[in-house]
């Protein structure tokens, strides 16, 4: 992979019938401020909508959010759909991924098995997601470019 400081498009959305929009609103804003081009699909997006958007915008990462407790069902077969569409992007998932009072390590394992590159809990700050993206996409940020959302 080559160092890439230019166009970095990510697709962001809430999967399934989940309508919790606040988290992705905050994420979108933080990602944009950090220099990403964000394609925000909004809430209640289907697997296919994620795949189509990733293809259309040649996204480097697909960021899935889920809060309402049905993430596991909603993501069954997601990576197969992406593969069929020839999407070769990083996949992250984050939010409140299990129903009830669960242990996060177990949750993380479940979603890694489903194919996600990284799994984030709902205590995740946008900054952490951005740092992970920059690491995974091998993005070097020069001093002058550095935009943090606290600024």
């Amino acid at each position, binding site marked *: 992979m080559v160092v890439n400081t230019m166009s970095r498009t990510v697709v962001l959305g*809430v999967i399934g*019938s989940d*309508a*919790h*929009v*606040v988290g992705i*609103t*905050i994420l979108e*804003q*933080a990602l944009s401020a950090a220099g990403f081009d964000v394609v925000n699909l*909004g*809430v*209640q997006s289907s697997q296919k909508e994620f795949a189509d958007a990733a293809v259309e915008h040649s996204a480097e990462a697909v960021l899935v959010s889920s809060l*309402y*407790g*049905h993430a596991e069902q909603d993501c069954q077969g997601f990576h197969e759909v992406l593969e069929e569409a020839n999407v070769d992007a990083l996949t992250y998932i984050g939010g*409140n991924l*299990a*129903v*009830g*009072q*669960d242990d996060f390590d177990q949750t993380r394992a479940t979603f890694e098995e489903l194919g996600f590159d990284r799994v984030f809990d*709902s*205590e995740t700050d946008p900054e952490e997601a951005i740092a992970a993206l920059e690491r995974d996409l091998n993005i070097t940020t020069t001093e002058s470019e550095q935009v943090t*959302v*606290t600024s």
Partner: protein
Amino acid sequence: MIRDERIPSEELRRIDEEIRSGWTTGGAVDFEEAIAYHESLPARKQFADVLESADKPLLQPRAGVPRLDDQIELLEYLHEEGKADLLPTTIDSYTRDNEYGKAEEGLEKARKTGDDTLNGFPAVNHGIEGCRELIEAIDAPIEVRHGTPDARLLAAITFAGGFQSFEGGPISYNIPYTKRHGLEETIEKWQFVDRLAGAYTERGVRINREPFGPLTGTLVPPSIAIAIMIVEGQLAATQGVRSITLGYGQVGNVVQDVAALNALQKLGDEYLPDEVCVTTVFHEWMGGFPPDEARANGVIGLGGMTAAIAKPDKVITKSPQEFQGVPTKEANSAGLRTTRQVIDMAIEQKIDIDGIAEEQDLIERETRCLMDSIFEHGDGDIVRGTLEAFDSGALDVPFAPSDSARGAVLPARDDDGRVRIFEWADLEMDDEIKEIHRARLSQRADTEGRDQSFRMVADDVDAISDGKLIGRPQGDA
């Protein structure tokens, strides 16, 4: 195009029949028999009467699991251990999407494995019999809580099943809950729900209707919430509903919350027809909770304190596990008891806080602006007006995921922690009022030595979960 008019009887019957054919359990509904059933219920299960005659705020949690026996056990626990006065039955997500087939699968799986494969109680699948078993098992009134855009079959079955209170409304269960349902569509569907409740009401069975006040739960300015409550109350009243509980979600500033609850009751009484008995429900903080049960208890404590001062008719409690996920029944009860303790310790005290009247006055003026705008947009018809006002952005809800609302208005807290409007977009409001908000927010910006920006909004969204009310810049920022 639909208007705010009562559905004629034949039309009601036609839709009712059509709707009930949507799932096998629909066939069992018999209106006359259902009336008789409601009449047979003891006084302590008559929701509207219990709520309207209470002499202090009644407490109600949220709770729903797929299996009937589990739901009975859960509600019994919340009643006995949590001392809940009113009980809920929260419906699962498939039912909310009218996917009764998927709900059936989930229910069967739940019955086989014992796992909670659904996130609520699929009342349609349980049918009238199942509902009645629940009603009979629990010695308190029970409300249906859901988030369903098209709740017609759910209403038909739960009303016949003995439930006497039904949450939601065409705006409040659309804008915050779904992306693609058109507002005209949901208004039409909820006119049926309200008309059905009205039909029961005419026969002496007053079904209580409760528009969902917190909306997106996230820094919703009181006047926006109140205007929507009045609209939904009016729509329900038109269809014959006579017991209406208007809702409001805590924003965390005590003065603003008390003022808002006062304004809600006052404007509700004023705008809604005299025949309607208007009550209010206060939702403990509906936004993001701290990821720590001890801190969550602090949030709940502030909610209880606010309720003790404002004295709404009902309080919907949160649990200390709100952040994490669906709470255990123990945590759910704990939230009830913490709230009860605070309310009972504080409610007999005379606590008159300065500035409530002024804040209430501001909220009322704002609400009237919005209501005037709605009436103007609709040439006097509130349905038309609501549709047009949302369409033009004259009416809007912050953080609305729905395509039917702009979601362009943005709130932020002022220096005292009251929710003001930072980005008005096209929201209809007197310039004088806008100036008040602007001044309050620029005072905060001065205090913090930073410009007003989306960053401020984002900080406020996170503030309570981070342990503060106002999202001040942290550290050396």
